[in-house]
């Protein structure tokens, strides 16, 4: 088998990305734990972890750039490196979202704890499950598993929308609870972003494995339907 060094470099790149993935998952989990236990020390860990994530993001991008320049990758190798770069960015944003949540938790510590009509833990579980599954599909190069992740996004979106509605209602009707409601809203929003990032990762995996660009499938299909009906798409 030729190009052993190149293949080794690809393996190294993959491992680096997996470490990045681990850090992002860990950050998410910690942020959720901090929320559940209202533990500021965990927030500290999230902040420190953020630095590691940022450093690794730069390393991965640099390694990928070098491979593109030096090795002229083609076909599957090219798609792999491209998806590594994109997944890298998504994971860094997952880290950001985790930090957001952790900041909200800090903010909430200063306030009284209240019951709010929103199931943050359930959203959190779903979102982190999506992240785990999408990364699993990357490790195993399994496009079908990635497609499953795509279907889970709707549920999280729905929960976020519902949270939005009920929290707005709380803020209107019980304005003294507005600060807590706002924080909860922002946490919900952050979790919805995590789910989106997991979806993107899954799409990148599908692109890598099958050469299929499945991004924006919803809006593309929608505009196709609208065209069929004779209505123009407002852009």
């Amino acid at each position: 088998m030729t190009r052993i060094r190149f293949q080794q470099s690809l393996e190294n790149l993959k491992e680096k990305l997996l470490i990045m993935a681990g850090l992002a998952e860990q950050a998410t989990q910690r942020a959720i734990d901090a929320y559940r236990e209202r533990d500021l020390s965990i927030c500290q860990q999230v902040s420190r972890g953020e630095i590691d994530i940022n450093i690794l993001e730069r390393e991965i991008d640099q390694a990928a750039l070098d491979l593109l320049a030096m090795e002229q990758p083609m076909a599957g190798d090219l798609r792999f490196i491209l998806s590594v770069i994109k997944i890298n960015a998504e994971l860094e944003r997952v880290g950001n979202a985790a930090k957001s949540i952790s900041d909200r938790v800090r903010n909430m510590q200063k306030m009284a704890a209240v019951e709010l009509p929103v199931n943050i833990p359930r959203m959190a579980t779903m979102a982190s499950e999506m992240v785990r599954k999408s990364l699993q599909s990357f490790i195993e190069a399994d496009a079908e598993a990635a497609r499953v992740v795509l279907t889970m996004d709707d549920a999280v979106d729905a929960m976020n929308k519902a949270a939005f509605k009920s929290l707005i209602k709380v803020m209107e009707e019980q304005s003294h609870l507005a600060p807590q409601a706002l924080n909860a809203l922002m946490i919900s929003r952050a979790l919805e972003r995590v789910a989106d990032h997991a979806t993107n990762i899954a799409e990148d995996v599908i692109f890598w494995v099958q050469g299929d660009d499945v991004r924006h499938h919803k809006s593309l299909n929608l505009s196709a339907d609208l065209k069929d009906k004779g209505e123009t798409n407002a852009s």
Partner: protein
Amino acid sequence: MGVGIEVTNLDAWYGTTQALQDINLNIPANHATALIGPSGCGKSTFVRCLNRMHETNPLARVTGTVRIGDLDIYKDAKPVEIRRRVGMVFQRPNPFPTMSIYDNVAAGLKLNSYNNRHVLDEIVERSLKNSALWDEVKDDLKKKSGASLSGGQQQRLCIARALAVDPEVLLMDEPASALDPVSTSKIEDLIFQLKAQYTIVIVTHNMQQAARVAEKTGFFLNGRMVEFDSTDKIFTNPSDKRTEDYITGRFG
């Protein structure tokens, strides 16, 4: 203007060795088509079947059909006639060493008894302009010999020589493999411009080059054509695993 090439059930032999097996291919007009594959895969043999240069080897034999435009080149014409419609540029630049630049470009016409001075002057100028060499040699056309130019210039001279007889197809067998990167870029830019007037088939072992200049690419392996598709598909997501293995360098 260029014409398309239609190849059907082409087999080629050197004596008892079969060099090509059942090649079927449609090369589109006014496009550049690249043929890639490992050494000995038959791509050069294939290209030489398109202008019947394969036959210069006394042991060569061909079955099947090659149509260039409407012409069945094996049934309806003689090799000499075909080669005036299908030009060829070789791997190593081969200008005629005893001839000046002018004579080199005009060789294809002069040696076919075409001698009208005025028209020859025009054709030489036009061919040299089309091969991006005019500006560099216009003052030395008859004074300098073809062999006194640099490698890249010599190759462009050979291209001009091939274009002077006004072919419809231009075959290029690894035209830039003996050249430095700057000359290579010049030749590639040239191919891009020539596409408008000619059908170009380029054999190359440099995949990046195929990717840069050709709309369609065919992958040859062991005398067969494994895959033929648009270049971007071949290089980003080929259908056949053998193509993928070759392109990514996984070949043993």
